[in-house]
């Protein structure tokens, strides 16, 4: 089985951003995503939805170019005002074209 490398972008942030983030990653070239409900703490204080059950974690498998675009968009549109973090790393998948 030949494995190909794609990038897994993980975004953790306030639930209030859910729809907007999904919309944004699709616009930047993602073809799918997986969400989990999490909670956590970072360097910002309380955020609006904290008492309503924490954060969401969005994971999306994308090509390196799309990953770069998503990371840029996160830094530009969300980091200044929202409690959001994002990170990226390589993973290997079977059908690379599904995520390209």
């Amino acid at each position, binding site marked *: 089985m030949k494995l190909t490398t794609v990038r897994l972008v993980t975004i953790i942030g306030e639930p209030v*951003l859910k729809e*907007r983030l999904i919309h944004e990653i699709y616009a930047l070239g993602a073809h799918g995503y997986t969400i989990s409900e999490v909670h956590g703490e970072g360097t910002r*204080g309380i955020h*609006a*939805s904290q008492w309503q059950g924490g954060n969401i974690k969005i994971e999306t498998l994308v090509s390196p170019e799309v990953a770069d675009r998503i990371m840029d968009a996160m830094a530009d549109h969300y980091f200044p005002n929202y409690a959001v973090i994002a990170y990226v790393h390589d993973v290997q998948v079977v059908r690379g074209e599904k995520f390209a």
Partner: protein
Amino acid sequence: MDTIEIIRSNLLSPLVLAFVLGIVATLIKSEVEIPEPIIKAISVYLLFSIGLSGGVELAGATISQFLLPALVTIALAIAVPTWCYLILRGIGKFDIPNAAGIAAHYGSVSSVTFVAGISFVERLPEGQNTFEAFIPALAALMEWGIVVALFIGRWRMGLSQAQDGSLGKVIRDTLTGRSVVLLVGGLLIGVIIGEQGFARIKPLYGDLFRGVLVFFLIEMGMLAGRQLRDFVKVGPFMAVFGTVMPLIHGIIGTSLGLLAGLSPNGAFILGVITASSSYIDAPAAVRATFPQANPSIYLTSSLGITLPVNLIIGLPLYYEYARWLGAVLGRM
């Protein structure tokens, strides 16, 4: 009951005591936990019950009395966030996003305070415990205060600087928000099914109502308790604002309600609606529209200060005021 008795009896009502139990549980870091899905389901239940009961009572006669109070409520939904914004900007020296954000909270409705107000009246002796059946519709109208506040903020900032969550989306979210749909939906269903249809579901939507509300208030107390800890962070201005504004709003709402022809009990509930400050819909809308606004300010003052102030001293105060003014106006 005289005034002292009313205050005492509110303080010692199961509702307020359950709320205090929740606060205490949080302060002693107890692990009492009412899971989130339960709380969500209970708030659906409470709003739907209130809508239903209102609808069942609604009759032609009461509908004709709806117009004036509805207009008054709309006026309040415009005026309250506006003067809150002006005070927060002028005296509180907040920037636009924070002023508009806080105004959105105080301009709209806290379901739990509203529901506690209803329950306050229903607890009164037979004959004194009725109110206009269309009251839930007033609460739904008052939700528009959020839109007004956000509109003011966006207008003052210039649209470019606000987040891309367009005002259109906020308007749609407000119109289709949970409380509006449940209150109005319940009201309509209640009207259709009438007394007879309601009888068979009354064990759930009528008899259990107060007990469930008590259970709910344990969690609300815990919520308020967690915010209370941040009390110091909000500073003296917001502490005063969060305490005094609801009282002023309660008095204004009650007065206008009476002038619009509501019964003293109905005017009291309009006062409660006006005094209450949102803690679910407003935070989400503000976060989406003005992310620059500091959530710990609006959350702490709304949940940690105004909610307890309303539940503990606001309710009996507005009620006594409604009775007094009602008597003055010869309405009792």
